[in-house]
C-alpha cells in the first residue's frame, strides 16, 4: 500500500524492528449486516487496518477458519458462513490503499444484503465492535549485516517482530512484500530467488505468529544450512 511507504533496511543491513499494538474502542457497534455495512463505509482507515491486519496481533486472530474480524463475526454472530468465506478470502495486500480495500469489502457485503431474504441480528452480547489501533514501532538495536545471519536471528524473534517484518511490511512497502524478501532481493535477486519464492509461499493468514516464525526459520535454515 502507498499510505505509509517506508523502508527500514539501510543498504547492507537489515535493522531489526519490533512493535506493540494497542486497541482503541471507536464506540461504533453493528448488530446486523446493514449496520456493519454502514460502519465499514464510515470507519476510519485505522479501523479497517485493525480488523484486517492489527487483529493478527490479538487473540481473535487464532480462529483457524476465518482470519479477519468481519469474516469471524459474519460466521459467529450472523451464522452467514457464505459471507464469512467471501470476506475471509480477501488478501488486503491486493489493494493499493485502505479505501480500495474498503470498497471491495463493501461490494461483498452489498451482494450479501441483496441475496438475503431477511437480515439476521446478532445477540446483544455479540455485537460487532469497530476497533482501531495504534502501533508503536521501535528499534531493537540489532542489525543483520549478512543474510546468513537470518536463521538464528529469526528463530529468536518476538512474535511482534515477525508481525512487523513479515506482515506489516506488506502494507508499507511499494511491492507489498515482506522485509526479508525486499532485503534479499536488493542484495542479489538471482542468488536468493529460490529463497524468496519459498518465503512467498508462507501464508501468514493461516498460522499463528509463532508458527509463522518457525516456518520462516526453517526456510532460512534450509537455505543457509546450520
Amino acid at each position, binding site marked *: 500500500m502507498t499510505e505509509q511507504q517506508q523502508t527500514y533496511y539501510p543498504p547492507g543491513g537489515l535493522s531489526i524492528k519490533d512493535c506493540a499494538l494497542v486497541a482503541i474502542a471507536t464506540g461504533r457497534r453493528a448488530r446486523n449486516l446493514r449496520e456493519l455495512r454502514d460502519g465499514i463505509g464510515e470507519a476510519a482507515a485505522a479501523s479497517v487496518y485493525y480488523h484486517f491486519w492489527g487483529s493478527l496481533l490479538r487473540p481473535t486472530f487464532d480462529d483457524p477458519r476465518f482470519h479477519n474480524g468481519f469474516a469471524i463475526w459474519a460466521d459467529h454472530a450472523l451464522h452467514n458462513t457464505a459471507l464469512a468465506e467471501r470476506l475471509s478470502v480477501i488478501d488486503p495486500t491486493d489493494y493499493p490503499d485502505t479505501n480500495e480495500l474498503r470498497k471491495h469489502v463493501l461490494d461483498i457485503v452489498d451482494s450479501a444484503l441483496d441475496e438475503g431474504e431477511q437480515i439476521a441480528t446478532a445477540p446483544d452480547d455479540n455485537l460487532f465492535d469497530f*476497533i482501531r489501533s*495504534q502501533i508503536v*514501532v*521501535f528499534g531493537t538495536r540489532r542489525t543483520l549485516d549478512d543474510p546468513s545471519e537470518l536463521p538464528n536471528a529469526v528463530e529468536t524473534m518476538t512474535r511482534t*517482530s515477525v508481525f512487523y517484518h513479515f506482515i506489516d511490511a506488506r502494507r508499507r512497502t511499494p511491492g507489498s512484500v515482506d522485509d526479508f524478501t525486499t532485503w534479499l532481493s536488493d542484495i542479489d535477486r538471482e542468488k536468493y530467488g529460490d529463497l524468496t519464492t519459498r518465503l512467498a509461499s508462507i501464508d501468514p493468514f493461516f498460522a499463528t505468529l*509463532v508458527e509463522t516464525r518457525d516456518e520462516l526459520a526453517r526456510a532460512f535454515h534450509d537455505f543457509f544450512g546450520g
Partner: protein
Amino acid sequence: MLDLLAQYADAAGPSVVDHLKQLAIPLKGLRVVHVNSTRVGGGVAEILAKLVPLKQELGIDATWEVIFGDDGFFRTTKTFHNALQGSTVSPTSQELRHYEEVNSENAGRMRELLESADIVFVHDPQPAPLLDQVPKRRGKWIWRCHIDVSRRYQPVWDYLSPFLKEYDASIFSLAAFAQNLPHTQYLIPPSIDPISEKNMPLEARDVQCVQEKFGIDPSREMVLQVSRYDRFKDPVGVIQAYRLARRFSPGLQLVLAGGGADDDPEAAEVIAETQEAADGDPDIRVLLLPPDAHLTINALQRAADIVLQKSTREGFGLTVSEAMWKGKPVIGGDTGGIRLQIIDSHTGYLVSTPEGAALRIRFLLHHRKRLEEMGTRARDFVRDNFLLTRHLREYLTVMLSLADEGKDRIELS
C-alpha cells in the same frame, strides 16, 4: 530487590521480557502513579502488586497509592460496583456527599505527588473524583475500569460520568464495556499471573494431596468447574452435562469448586440448588473454598482432565485462562470474554447448552490425543495472549501512545 523480570522470563519466555525492556526505554524515569482503594484482596490489588514493581524494574518511577475511607465510603463504592454491573441500586445523596468528601481528603494528602506525576492511572470508581480535586495537575490522567459496565444502572452512571469525562483517556477490558466518553478508550483485556500461587507449577505430590483431601480418585477421569455459586455460572447445567456424559464414561467424577456464601444470600440459594441437583451422587463434589484457597484451585485444575466454564453470562471469566495455562482444554459458555479465550475447536469448545457441553466432554474423553493436543495449544495461546507480561506490554504501549494520540503509527527513534 527480587528479580521479577527474570521470573517472568522463565514463565513467558526471555524474548517477551526483552521486548518489554526495549519498549520501556523511552519511558525510563517517567513518574507514574497508580491509585486504587485497597492494597490487599481483589483482582486489582493482585495486578498492581506485580505491575508496579515490574515497571520499577524497567526503570519507570512508578508508585502505588491507596485511598483511605471509612465503612460508609466503602458501602457507597460497593453500591457503585453493584450498580455498574447491573443492579438497580443507588447511594443516597448524603452517601454521595461523603464519597466526594473522602476523595477530597485523599487528594489533599496526595496532592504533591499527583500534581507532579507524568501519568496517573486511577483504578475503578472509588478514587474517580480525585482528578477534579487536583486542578494543578500537569500529567495525563487515565481512568482504568476493571468492571463489566455493559449493563450499568443508568442513574449511577449519570452521577459518575461527569467525573470520568474529565480524564484524558480510559481503559476498558473489552470493547463491549466501552462507554460514550469524550476521550480515547483503550482496550486491555485482563491477564493471569503465571508466578502466583494460583498458577505456578506444582509438584505431583501437591496435586495428589488435594485429590486425597477431597476424595477424588486419581485413577478415574474428572471434570471441574471453578466459579462463584451464581446462576449465570450455571452449576446446575454443569451437573446435567456431567450426567449426560457419564452414561458413556461411567467412572467420570465432577468437582464444582467455588467460594462460600456468608454475605451473599443469592449464592446460598444457588449452593442449595446445586447440592439438590447433585442429589447425593458420591462422584459429584460441591466444594466451598475460602477466598485464599489459591493452591487448592491450582491443584484441582491440574488434576482435572477437562475444565468447564459453562457460564450463560460472563464478564471476562479468567478461570478459563487459568485452566488453559495448565494445559487443559476448556468447554465454556459462548458468551462475553470466554469467546476471546476459547477458540472453538482449537483451544477448547464454546457451547450453549448442557447437551452441547456433554457432547464435547464425551468427544474429548474418547479422543485422548485430541484432548492433549488441544491442551497444549491452549497453554501456548495463554502464553501469547493472557499472561501478565502482555498486560504490562499494553500498559507501556498506552503510555507511549498518550504522547501521540491522534497518530495510527508511532515510530520511536
